[in-house]
């Protein structure tokens, strides 16, 4: 409070003393009056005094006013007065006016007179003090936020203004309070939707303050569709032709997007880049650009640049660049570039914007290379722009912009670099039209130091990281003056360096020399051929050493440093192809003429220069004044890279160098050893492969083997199983004898026994039938044996023989009967003859005798025949008899067999009897066991009984069979 009074005392001494009293009275009324009207009047009165007696009203009435906000929220009128009053004490009108002028013309505000400045600062202090008091209670800000929900104009408008003023004074704190109050930001975003333009426009100003430097709020505002709404407002207001509202929208958009990658991504993903394109559709009749339009376009271009800034992540920038090409935004910008009547300010910014839209993007760079200026004949835009760069009459910022554009065009663009260098080469030179190369050479050797510098840097960018172009450019020869042999471009550059003093130049000599030295450094770094080319001229090294060793003034320090760098490059990238200027000799030269320490110190002059770090910050060449144009961004990178290695290279003694050589040699040896080993490895590899193949086949074989093994194993297993089964069977068989020991096994054993019995019975039946057969056979044999010894029944042929025998026997009998008949006839005849002889003559006798003799002879012949027959028959009979003997022998064999069988049967019968005995025993045992179980009280009857009964039945059957 004392401080406030002190300020008043100083400022408003002698002003109506009644003011303080009146305010006191009004405050009392506000605090104590029960009537709303009274309070309202009092607040209104306070409001009217608040501008004149800002300090008094602020110190005395603030608490009362805040209380009004809390208690009288139903009456919008009193709220409005209270808010207005608070606004007046926190932010004075004068200040606001000044603020606006500051926004519109930033340059002018810098020149505000000193006394005014101090007064303002004091008032700012007052505003800051009061706002600090207001926000001491965060609830006050929350209360203010709820006020903004009130639709009434008299509340909402002053509310917006008050909050804006608070944000202006205590930005971070108020932001913090709004951020944590639920829906705080959303409520403020609703202001943009207000149909009353005043509120919407003041809402824009509020949001501008709100989003300043607070990424979290920026994101929420974006989330609340800020981009959509702002772009809509810009369109509604007529884009660049719109008024200050468009400017405010653009400023807010810039706030939301600058350094906020999340929002940039959202902006891109929301396809808002496409909506920027129409902004740049400016007609060709560009006469009469209003200041507002220039401002608007300026901000629009800045917005584009924010999206593709080199400081953004490369991926994000690349995707935005792509979008800008695809939607035609880049093309639109290039149209502005080539249009006539565009204010230099806008043109410069457009060039800068195009630069960043094409930087590092091959597609965009290719498009840019194809753009032609609408001149007659049409010239490439690049050429037209370069013309401006080397034109002294063009504004400095424009020339810087063109240089930036050219750099961006060549950035990571080998194709573009090649095209530019090609315009200088003798084979492709076109004498009729102006080429980029010609313009650059012209700039390099013009009398204007700025052109020298720009051309040198531009040419340097055509060589950046491109060995091919560095070598190509060595081919360039220049015709200096008539009658003299052509000079190479490289030599010409050094010539200008060494003879610089002879030519009178506009601008600074240092600038030219720095530019040329940077070009030479860029050219020769990482290019031994260029180094050799440079060293080839006997004058160059002495010039450099002279420059470095001389004790020159402050201005020349940078040149000395650059000369040291160039000499360092000559050492570091030296391939020792020139005998006089090998690495070693150059080092000795430094040691003798300059001294190592001195050399390194001079080299350090470059990075120690005040402008060096500024250029290292960002790629755009932006210089506050032409004389500050000394360093190129890419060159600072090169220096950073080389300073260390050159220092190291120079410091290395010859011994160390030798050591290094040795190391190199050993390395080479190692290399040869390594190659030997490599070969060995290769051989071994082959071997390994062979072995692998072998292994493959072996493994497949092994697999096969394993298969067979498993098969065999399974077979074995099967056998084992079978064996086990047999064993089990055996066990059971043996177990039968002592069965009954285990009750559980009895049933099983019984069934087994039954089965066995069945088998035995079958065997028995079979044997019986066999026996029966044998019996019949034997009976037959016996019968035959008895009936006829000749007759044999054993074999089928016997029956045939028998039949034959029978028939023969029949014949024999009939023949015997004939024989006996014939004998009787003979006897008859003999008796007759005796009687005849006795009775009749000799004649009669003779005839009869002859007749008889004839008969006799016939009969004897017959008998002979018959006798023959009989003989044969007897023979056959003998054979028959033999056969019969054989048959009888077989019969005896059969009979022995039969007896054997009979024996077997008897045996089996005996076995059966044994088994039956066993069964009987077992049954006995079972019965006894059952009895015992019964005795023990077990009831197991049913099944066991049944089984037992079955058992008995079986036994009966067997007995019956036996009987049979």
């Amino acid at each position, binding site marked *: 409070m004392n401080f406030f009074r002190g300020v008043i005392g100083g400022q408003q001494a002698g002003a109506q003393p009644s003011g303080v009293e009146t305010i006191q009275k009004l405050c009392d009324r506000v605090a104590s009056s029960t009537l709303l009207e009274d309070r309202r009047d009092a607040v209104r009165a306070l409001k009217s005094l608040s501008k004149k007696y800002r300090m008094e009203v602020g110190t005395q009435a603030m608490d009362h006013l805040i209380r009004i906000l809390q208690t009288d929220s139903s009456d919008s009128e009193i709220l409005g007065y209270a808010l207005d009053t608070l606004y007046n004490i926190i932010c004075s009108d004068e200040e606001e006016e000044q603020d606006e002028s500051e926004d519109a013309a930033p340059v002018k505000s810098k020149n505000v007179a000193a006394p005014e400045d101090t007064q303002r600062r004091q008032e700012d202090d007052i505003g800051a003090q009061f706002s600090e008091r207001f926000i001491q209670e965060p609830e006050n800000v929350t209360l203010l936020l709820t006020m903004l929900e009130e639709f009434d104009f008299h509340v909402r408008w002053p509310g917006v203004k008050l909050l804006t003023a608070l944000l202006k004074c205590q930005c971070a704190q108020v932001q913090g309070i709004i951020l*944590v109050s639920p829906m705080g930001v959303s409520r403020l975003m609703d202001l943009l939707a207000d149909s009353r333009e005043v509120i919407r426009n003041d809402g824009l100003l509020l949001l501008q303050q709100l989003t300043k430097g607070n990424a979290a709020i920026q*994101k929420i505002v974006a989330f609340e569709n800020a981009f959509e709404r702002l772009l809509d407002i810009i369109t509604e207001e007529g884009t660049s032709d719109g008024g200050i509202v468009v400017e405010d929208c653009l400023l807010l958009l810039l706030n939301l997007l600058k350094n906020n990658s999340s929002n940039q991504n959202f902006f891109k993903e929301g396809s808002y880049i496409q909506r920027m*394109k129409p902004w740049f559709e400016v007609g060709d009749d560009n006469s009469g650009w209003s200041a507002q339009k220039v401002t608007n376009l300026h901000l629009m271009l800045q917005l584009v640049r924010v999206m593709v800034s080199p400081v953004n992540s490369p991926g994000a920038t690349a995707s935005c660049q792509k979008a800008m090409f695809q939607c035609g935004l880049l093309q639109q910008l290039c149209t502005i570039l080539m249009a006539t009547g565009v204010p230099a300010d806008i043109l410069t910014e457009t060039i800068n914007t195009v630069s960043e839209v094409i930087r590092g993007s091959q597609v965009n760079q290719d498009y840019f290379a194809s753009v032609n200026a609408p001149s007659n004949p049409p010239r490439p835009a690049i050429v037209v722009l370069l013309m401006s760069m080397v034109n002294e009459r063009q504004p400095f910022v424009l020339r810087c912009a063109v240089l930036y554009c050219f750099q961006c065009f060549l950035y990571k663009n080998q194709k573009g670099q090649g095209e530019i260098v090609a315009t200088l080469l003798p084979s492709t030179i076109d004498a009729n039209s102006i080429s980029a190369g010609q313009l650059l050479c012209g700039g390099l050797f013009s009398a204007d130091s700025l052109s020298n510098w720009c051309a040198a840097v531009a040419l340097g960018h055509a060589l950046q990281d491109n060995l091919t172009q560095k070598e190509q450019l060595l081919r360039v020869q220049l015709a200096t003056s008539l009658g003299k042999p052509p000079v190479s471009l490289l030599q010409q550059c050094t010539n200008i360096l060494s003879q610089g003093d002879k030519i009178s130049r506009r601008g600074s000599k240092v600038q030219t020399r720095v530019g040329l030295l940077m070009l030479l450094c860029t050219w020769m770094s990482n290019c031994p051929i260029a180094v050799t080319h440079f060293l080839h001229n006997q004058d160059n090294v002495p010039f450099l050493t002279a420059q470095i060793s001389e004790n020159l003034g402050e201005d020349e320090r940078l040149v000395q440093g650059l000369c040291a760098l160039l000499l360092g490059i000559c050492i570091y990238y030296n391939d020792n192809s020139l005998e006089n200027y090998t690495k070693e000799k150059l080092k000795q030269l430094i040691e003798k003429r300059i001294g190592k320490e001195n050399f390194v110190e001079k080299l350090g002059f470059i990075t120690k220069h005040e402008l060096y770090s500024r250029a290292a910050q960002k790629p755009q060449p932006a210089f506050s004044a032409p004389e500050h144009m000394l360093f190129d961004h890419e060159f600072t990178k090169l220096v950073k890279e080389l300073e260390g290695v050159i220092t190291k290279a120079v410091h290395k003694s010859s011994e160390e160098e030798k050591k290094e050589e040795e190391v190199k040699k050993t390395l080479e040896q190692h290399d040869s050893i390594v190659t030997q080993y490599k070969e060995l490895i290769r051989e071994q590899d082959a071997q390994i492969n062979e072995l692998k193949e072998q292994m493959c086949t072996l493994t497949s074989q092994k697999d096969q083997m394993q298969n067979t093994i498993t098969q065999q194993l399974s077979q074995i297993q099967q056998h084992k199983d079978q064996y086990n089964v047999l064993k089990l069977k055996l066990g059971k068989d043996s177990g039968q004898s002592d069965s009954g020991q285990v009750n559980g096994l009895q049933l099983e054993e019984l069934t087994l026994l039954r089965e066995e019995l069945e088998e035995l019975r079958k065997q028995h039946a079979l044997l019986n039938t066999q026996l029966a057969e044998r019996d019949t056979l034997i009976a037959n044999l016996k019968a035959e044996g008895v009936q006829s010894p000749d007759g044999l029944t054993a074999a089928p042929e016997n029956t045939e023989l028998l039949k034959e025998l029978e028939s023969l026997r029949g014949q024999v009998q009939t023949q015997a009967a004939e024989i006996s008949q014939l004998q009787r006839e003979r006897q008859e005849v003999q008796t007759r003859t005796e009687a005849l002889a006795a009775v009749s003559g000799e004649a009669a006798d003779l005839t009869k005798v002859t007749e008889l003799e004839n008969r006799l002879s016939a009969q004897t012949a017959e008998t002979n025949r018959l006798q023959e027959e009989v003989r044969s028959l007897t023979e056959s009979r003998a054979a028959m008899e033999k056969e019969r003997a054989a048959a009888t022998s077989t019969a005896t064999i059969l009979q022995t067999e039969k007896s054997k069988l009979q024996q077997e049967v008897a045996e089996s019968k005996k076995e059966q009897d044994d088994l039956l005995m066993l069964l009987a025993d077992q049954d006995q045992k079972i019965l006894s066991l059952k009895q015992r179980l019964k005795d023990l009280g077990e009831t197991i009857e049913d099944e066991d009984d049944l089984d037992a009964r079955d058992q008995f039945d079986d036994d009966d059957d067997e007995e019956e069979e036996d009987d049979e």
Partner: protein
Amino acid sequence: MAYAYLFKYIIIGDTGVGKSCLLLQFTDKRFQPVHDLTIGVEFGARMITIDGKQIKLQIWDTAGQESFRSITRSYYRGAAGALLVYDITRRDTFNHLTTWLEDARQHSNSNMVIMLIGNKSDLESRREVKKEEGEAFAREHGLIFMETSAKTASNVEEAFINTAKEIYEKIQEGVFDINNEANGIKIGPQHAATNSTLTGGQGGQQAGGGCC
């Protein structure tokens, strides 16, 4: 680039449950094994197709840490869908669901579709929350449920797409007021062009911009 609808999503849930990983898997189809703490919110977007219609999803991945809670609350109101994520290997993240749900219901519009997600389903051996528990919680609170793995990408697409389907159905049923962008839904430029022919030249100009 043209889309029929635009839906705004938010992803919420305890810190370290894999919200950012889910988003990265969905938008970039890759997995980031190193836990990089989200500061405030991060934005991501992708186009999907539902019912033959192109739908643009704009997703705000929020920080799970308590200190960012007040900031992330600002995103509830403007979202049409929310993925509420817990970690199946951390019981506490499941236990906090009620708090998250209360917060979401309190600050969001009543029609917001909430998808409950049990993430890290690839870590079956370390599971602390049964799938059935998640299902039961979802049933009880009227949420859609799914178990996902941002690491293996299992169900990640489905989680985002099913949420979109639910919103789409709600639009078809007329539950959402699609003309109020505060609901997190926007009609695409094509549709807007046909819808706003009556609003005059300005709409046409806008559509012209959208076409390019």
